[in-house]
């Protein structure tokens, strides 16, 4: 898997200071109109995710003030093939059970759970920001989202309770 960039001590993508991983590659065809990172849609964009990359992410999460990992893209859900991401979230869940994992996807929750690999991955995601970016519904004032159709779903909890739980507690006014 390739990734476009990693931000450390990020304050924009989620609660608290976080490590944010932007993976490369999105299979959505046609892509969302007004895609914010067209370059990162190519799967060979950026750098290869290596063991060192993983270590640097793990290392950053050791800091007590880093509240968790945010996975953005590209499209994380189109990057599960080689098992890199699943391995990463498994390790984090094991090592830092108190830290949260946020994930951004252009697919809806309902679409994602149909696929067993994606479903397994979702078991490790605390917050899923789902749905494609629809330009005519653009609203930059909406928390962590680009357009009003997108939802914030407590993924792990939703799977446990077998119903979609829209997570509002991620937002602190």
């Amino acid at each position, binding site marked *: 898997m390739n990734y476009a*960039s*990693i*931000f*450390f*001590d*990020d*304050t*924009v*993508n*989620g*609660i*608290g*200071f*976080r490590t*944010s991983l932007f993976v490369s590659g999105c299979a959505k065809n046609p892509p969302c109109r007004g895609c914010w990172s067209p370059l990162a849609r190519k799967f060979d964009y950026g750098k290869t995710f290596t063991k060192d990359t993983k270590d640097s992410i793990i290392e950053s999460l050791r*800091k007590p*003030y880093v*509240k968790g990992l945010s996975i953005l893209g590209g499209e994380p859900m189109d990057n599960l093939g080689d098992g890199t991401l699943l391995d990463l979230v498994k390790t984090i869940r094991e090592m830092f059970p108190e830290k949260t994992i946020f994930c951004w996807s252009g697919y809806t929750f309902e679409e994602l759970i149909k696929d067993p690999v994606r479903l397994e991955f979702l078991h490790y995601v605390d917050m899923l920001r789902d749905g494609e970016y629809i330009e005519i519904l653009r609203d*930059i*004032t909406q*928390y962590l989202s680009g357009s009003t159709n997108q939802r914030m779903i407590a993924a792990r909890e939703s799977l446990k309770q077998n119903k979609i739980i829209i997570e509002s507690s991620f*937002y*602190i006014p």
Partner: protein
Amino acid sequence: MQVIKRDSRKKEFIPERISTAAGKAFIEVYGREDKEFNNKVLNGVLETLKQRGETIIPIEEIQDIIVDEIKLLDVAVALAYINYREERTFERDKKGELDKEIDNIINAVSEQTNSNGNLDGSKIQTIRALISNVVGSNYSQRHKIPKKYLKKHRKSIYIHDETYFGLPFFNCCLVDWINMFENGFDLGTTLIGTPNSIETAVNVLSQVASHISSNTYGGTTFPSLITGLTPYAVKSLNKHRAVGKLWIEDKTKVEAYAWDRLGKEIEDSMQSLEYEVQTLMTSRAETPFLTLGINNVDLNASDENQKIQKMITEAILNQRIKGLTGGVTPVFPKLVYQNTKGNNLNPGDKYYDLFKLAVVCSAHRQYPDYINTDKAIEVTGDYKECMGCRSFLGSYQDEEGNYKTAGRFNFGVISINLARLAIEAKGNEDVFFISLYEALDDCKELLMIRYDILKNVKAKQAPILYMSGAISKLKAEDTIEPLLNNGYASASIGYVGLHNCLTALYGKGLNDSTGLTSKRATKIMKCLRDYCDDQKEKTKIGFSLYGSPAETLATKFCAEDVLDFGVIPGVNDNGYYENSFHYPSNELISPFDKLDLESESSSLSSGGAISFVELGDMTKNLVALEDIIRYSYDKTHFLGISSISDKCLKCGYTGEMFTKQNSDTEFECPVCKNDDKMLLSIIRKLCGYLGSIFERPVVNGKMKEIKNRKNNKGCN
């Protein structure tokens, strides 16, 4: 023959003037007159003029001929003449400059117009103040600042507030308002008794602020507002109880009524304080540079008093969060909030919820800034608020050994241009340190001149300060000299551009992460600090090291150095220098790393320092804001939050407004694309204070720095 004077008027040539001028130079050297010498000079000059045969000649050329003639007779006298001529030229230039500057102010094109974010030069009411500023500067330059320092002024050193250099004002202070209010005081010609309610106390507070600001030239801080206002809130509470008892029989209902009324009274008082301060105008045509200290709820106070203190804290913060009409962020007063482990800083502390409220307030309004109690004690000796934007006093104990903080002040700041000294040293460390000591001596000498000017000030000259108790209670004819001694007041040596200095000297600035650079930085900082400590020890005057705010100075120094040395990449090519010990604001860095890196220099600058964290819109990430503030507790005594919470008054969007492409000063709303300056509220940290970008135009260099700032939104 005719002479062309400097103002290009033509006048008849008067030969006697030549002998008079030569005579003066002769007396200067030998202390006696020699008519024969004067005549020799005159005859020589007349002979030369005759040979040239011109019928009209400029005055400067005649003077050149005079110099040549005297040189032939006596070199020492010639030098005295040249000196005299230079001084006259300086005087004349200054006078000419003054006229020009006044012209510029009246036509609103002066640099003075934008020199601090708090003076709006386009307004008629400001013109008189601006004119008095240039007249004051001009007077200081001609009569109070020795010529040898004047040559270095704006180059290697900077005399802050030179307008006031020759005047009997001091800079900034911590007002002893608690003492004033307890005992009553004279305000102008009116005797004010101790207030009997919190509403009155707060009203009197803004009156006092206005008076004090007109008698000083720097920031005015009202320390310990929370505990200080408590007695008046108690009086209010008891009044409400008395009223309640008249109408209500049920005792618990009386109590509920009284507290309810008190809450409302506190809220109203804080609201009027906010508006009154915003709209105050000092004799300098500025909004007073006012700072309010939100100190801790006193854990040793009675339950009732703690409850009241909590209410006052909440009222001040909630009022600020609400903003002014239309939700606009107030620029003044600056709020500083006291963080203390065991009181409010951590979950589980009794007043943790007040800290959280302060965090919300900072996210929306950038203020409060935070004073970290334990670090403040370590750095400055005891807890106290900053004076104005970042100046801190050392500790002072009275005869009984009690720490005294309020009623103290700073009487001057001279800053060193570290970058220039480094450029001049051309990479030679020894040369740099020699010129650094020279600059330090210059600063000290200038501050001693300030001391001499102020020591003769009599208490009656500023009764509100020296007789009413804001500073002390002296008798009318007493001089204030005792207040200047034993570290009661401070005199600060500031510095600008540590980062640029390191780059010029070693090729690597603060953004170099090797330990070597930080060792070099420490060496320079220690040298500065040791000098101040040493002078304090020798003179018993409170010399202290100050991380200068340099709101416009950062630009002035840089521009001057570009003129003299050209553009040097990495050193002066930005158009401004970094403030004090600050990490370059255009470099991306984790705020945690920034606080780590700046910690030592901030602690060494005990006379004043502020560490900033540059953040984006934090209103949607309070957890992060809280974490970084808490992290700063062991790193710096004073933390400033530079977050972004702009408001579009057209569509109501709150968040970051960006500058348009190819512009440093044109902003637009990212949602509705509104770019009407009247409908955009854009507030930025300028130095230690906030500034509204459009209401108070900022100097270009500062605007550029603001645009270049990298917010710590995350880093690679």
